[in-house]
């Protein structure tokens, strides 16, 4: 610790004579040695694109930005053989007029390569295999795998991941199914149904049995051999009686959904299917016109007959109108606006017309839930009306079709929040994320604290929230259970229309958050 402090002092001493608004030293995180010739970009945080400032680290790893306009910045780094980085994982550097920042200690993580070859059972390299890199999920809601990156092998069957941070990873490999739209008969007169199912390094059939690969900074892991696992796929074939024009089949399986076309004579064939239980739905647009359960656990299913239900209810369109709550305030939804309706697990996205209006098309009469309304910008959804009646969107009764359109009333986000982190550290070296969680447990707003632990959120929708400050926050780990577990360290906040509030908040360390996950 003392050595590092001395080094920082020595390395920045060269800049002592210069007026450095932002200065510091770059070192290798593993060895602590200075890293020279690092490109350091001081990137302004602004809604409009402002040119960044570029400096390179000198012989002792020191750097100095002399002229920096006041504003909020991120310090990004780039150098060959190291991972691209952002100082402190995203610490906001607040530069104020006439003041200099405390010297920064920027640590670079050496790049490590994870590479190898994918082969078939006979040892022949396989081009275009899909290699997936996973981490184990630590979330309490899900203990499965989380895909970090994926890529296809090249013509030599080679894969290479060069941007992974140090950690423990798991590798999966598979290849796309081919020839599934028609039977291709082999020399024995049987459909060739060989394909590949995902297998995991080193030769595991299940993710649970996969061997971990530990990647350390600067230490390449090369020459891994991934072997594709062959499997016999299944097929479904048969005919549809009375198929309406444009109809297709949707095949639902616990691992995913796929589809099949129907030939003009009503026949169909779909190969490349994993063994298991399938629900085969006959659909015309979004309309369900027939259904059949098909078991492919022990073999193919030939001669499946699905008869179209000619009495199925007609689909309908639900128009959606936006208006501002304040009379006379112009509001036009942006193209980033999106609305999602859910029926069971089936999601429908509203379509935007050229004139800026929205509509849900091809809905079938049923109960729905308005899963998401995103209006973006400075507005938030204040109220939702369905057929003129107010609704919270959790249950939309569309069993009788369109009840008279949906109206979404928006209001300008008028509240604001400023605050500071309380604790022992005078200058942050790790990014701290401030989360504003609404009463439904969703992330309403988020921001980062600056190097002095100060933060602000403008244009916040009025309402009741809990405020969290988290080190090394990862959105994939965030869920309502974690929010509950950390509630004691959060702060309840209620923001009124146009209100500006000041708060103080204790940060939750990464270790505390990890303990809560466990």
């Amino acid at each position, binding site marked *: 610790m003392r050595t590092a402090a001395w080094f920082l002092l020595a390395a920045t001493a060269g800049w002592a004579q210069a007026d450095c608004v932002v200065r510091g030293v770059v070192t290798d995180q593993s060895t602590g040695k200075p890293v020279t010739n690092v490109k350091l970009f001081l990137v302004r945080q602004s809604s409009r694109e402002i040119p960044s400032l570029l400096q390179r680290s000198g012989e002792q790893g020191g750097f100095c930005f002399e002229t920096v306009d006041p504003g909020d910045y991120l310090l990004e780094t780039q150098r060959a053989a190291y991972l691209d980085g952002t100082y402190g994982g995203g610490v906001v550097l607040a530069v104020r007029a006439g003041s200099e920042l405390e010297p920064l200690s920027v640590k670079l993580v050496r790049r490590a390569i994870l590479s190898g070859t994918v082969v078939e059972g006979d040892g*022949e390299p396989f081009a275009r295999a899909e290699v997936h890199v996973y981490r184990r999920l630590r979330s309490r809601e899900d203990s499965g795998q989380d895909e970090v990156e994926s890529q296809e092998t090249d013509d030599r069957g080679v894969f290479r991941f060069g*941007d992974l941070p140090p950690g423990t990873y798991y590798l999966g490999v598979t290849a796309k199914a081919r020839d599934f739209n028609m039977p291709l008969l082999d020399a024995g007169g049987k459909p060739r149904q060989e394909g590949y199912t995902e297998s995991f390094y080193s030769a595991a059939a299940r993710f649970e049995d996969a061997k971990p690969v530990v990647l350390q900074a600067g230490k390449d892991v090369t020459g891994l051999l991934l072997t594709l696992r062959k499997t016999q796929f299944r097929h479904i074939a048969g005919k549809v009686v009375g198929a309406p024009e444009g109809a297709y089949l949707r095949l639902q399986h616990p691992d995913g959904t796929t589809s099949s076309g129907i030939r003009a004579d009503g026949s169909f064939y779909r190969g490349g299917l994993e063994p298991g239980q399938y629900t085969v739905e006959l659909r015309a647009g979004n309309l369900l016109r027939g259904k059949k359960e098909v078991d492919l656990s022990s073999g193919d299913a030939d001669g499946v007959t699905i008869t179209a239900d000619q009495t199925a209810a007609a689909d309908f369109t639900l128009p959606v109108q936006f208006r501002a709550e304040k009379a006379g305030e112009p509001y036009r939804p942006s193209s980033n606006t999106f609305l999602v309706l859910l029926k069971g697990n089936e999601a429908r996205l509203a379509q935007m017309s050229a004139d800026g209006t929205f509509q849900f098309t091809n809905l079938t009469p049923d109960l729905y839930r308005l899963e998401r309304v995103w209006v973006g910008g400075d507005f938030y959804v204040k109220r939702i009306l369905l057929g003129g009646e107010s609704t919270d969107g959790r249950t939309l009764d569309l069993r009788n079709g369109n009840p008279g359109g949906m109206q979404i009333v928006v209001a300008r986000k008028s509240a604001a929040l400023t605050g500071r982190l309380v604790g022992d550290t005078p200058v942050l070296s790790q990014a701290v994320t401030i989360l504003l969680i609404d009463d439904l447990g969703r992330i309403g707003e988020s921001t980062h604290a600056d190097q002095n632990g100060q933060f602000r959120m403008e244009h916040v929708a009025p309402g009741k929230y809990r405020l969290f400050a988290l080190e090394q926050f990862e959105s994939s780990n965030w869920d309502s259970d974690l929010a509950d577990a950390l509630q004691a360290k959060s702060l309840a906040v209620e923001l009124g229309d146009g209100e500006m509030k000041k708060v103080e908040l204790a940060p939750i360390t990464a270790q505390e958050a990890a303990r809560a996950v466990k």
Partner: protein
Amino acid sequence: MARGHSVRTVLLIFATVLTGWTQAQFSGRVTNSITGLPVAKATVRLAPVAGRAGYVRTSGAAGEFRFEGISPGDYRLGMERRGFSPVVHSAGKGVPGGSVIHLTAGQNLADLDLLATPLPIVTGTVTEGPGEGEPVPRAIIEILAQRWSIAGRWYEEIDTAANDQGQFRAPELEPGRYYFYARRPDEGPLTEVVKDASGKGEVCLAGVYYPNAPSIEGASAVEVRAGQEVTGIGLRLAWSPCFHARGRTTGPDVEEVQMIRRRQDTPLPWESREADRATDGTFDIPGVVAGDYLVSAIGHRGPKGPAQEVTVESRDLEGLAVSGENVSFNARVQVEGDGAPPLSSVYLLLETVTGPGNARFTTVPVQPDGTARLGRITPARYTLAAGSSQGGVYVKSVKAGPEEWPSPVLDFRGGSPPELEIVVGLGTGQVQGTVQWPDPSEGAVPVAAGDAMRAVLVPQESRAGIRGAWFAELDQNGAFTFSEIPPGKYFVFAAANLEEALWMNREFIGLVQGSGAPVDLPEKGNVQVEAPVLPAAVAQRAMESIR
């Protein structure tokens, strides 16, 4: 018992003989087109054109494959092997790639030689900065092949990314001539526009063409042959001065403004910059390097309003006025000819001419009063055709005022065109024929000789409303048919391995027309023709000439 056994034997023999009569056989071997060595483990497919089941085999150690018991019918032949092109070629008596093989009952198509073309490999490195430079991890490399459309030159692009050391390996390129362009990664610090040393100007990591040319005019194409390994394609990005393009955009629903680099009027879409339209209608596009550009407004459905040509020199471009007003299409249509269909059954078809595969079609219905209008159309270049639910119609003439439309292309990029007068005729015809092989002794082979051979029909003179070219596949007897052809004068060719777009180039056609068979198709005519094979040397010379 013995009698029963012999009856079964007779039935078995009878069934076998019957199968031989009613089904077809197909066999041959797969060889490397360069080395002549057998290609083992190749997947050979016979996919039915209309049937329900196809056939698949894997070639053996000597490259051999054999299909037996094939139901008679039309099939497409496909081949797949790691490191080889999926395009099937054949030597001597072979099968044109992707073409239809007609197999009849009892037919035995044997000793077919399928040539597998080994794919070339191209590798290189992207660096930046002085001296040896530093590798640029995840730089984007665009591999460009020059193509032609009826409106002129365009480039087909394939992109790939460099690895963490700035190295790239071009994926599955077919043999051909390619340009290589590298640009900064899509994300990360190197995407930043930064202030230069003076603090007044701005620099950014500018893209570069091989061999380190800042624009496509200075680029050199790299010839890549089958099985060849081309290494050491070095691309050096440079921190170069870059500028802003600022202005105001008008028109409804404009979301952003885009600048695309151009070579004369050919857009180079891999060199583009864009910025959002601000609420007051202004825009500010940073990071623009000096060069010629097309500027256009973009709505949520793509380009809107006319594109304008601008040039960025050594300073910011200020005061641009970019219109996002809709471009509209207006025409008056009349139908001529005996038994002409009612106007309401006629429609116009506009096809963008960016190139095959990228083409978009817009249908404009004709109203009973003869008007055909579309209030909003993407500002682009189009070809025009006419159709009818009853078939047989074609565009006879296109006029703007008293003048014939001067070009085969309708260019709407500059804004709404004047109202067009379109005459639709009735009476398309048919051109049928066979290939006139250079060596008559090969005329008796059961399938078409030559590699990926097709018949091509091109108009002797191009004009608005008539396509640049028609293509027909050959059957195994070398026969072809072109249907729904407008009356007029044409050339017919048989040609192998030439990209479709080349036939849109009138300069190319001018150079090879002496090798074509002239055809004069009357209204509702049916003309027979023998199409000579375009000699490869003639085609090559013509291609070299137009490059």
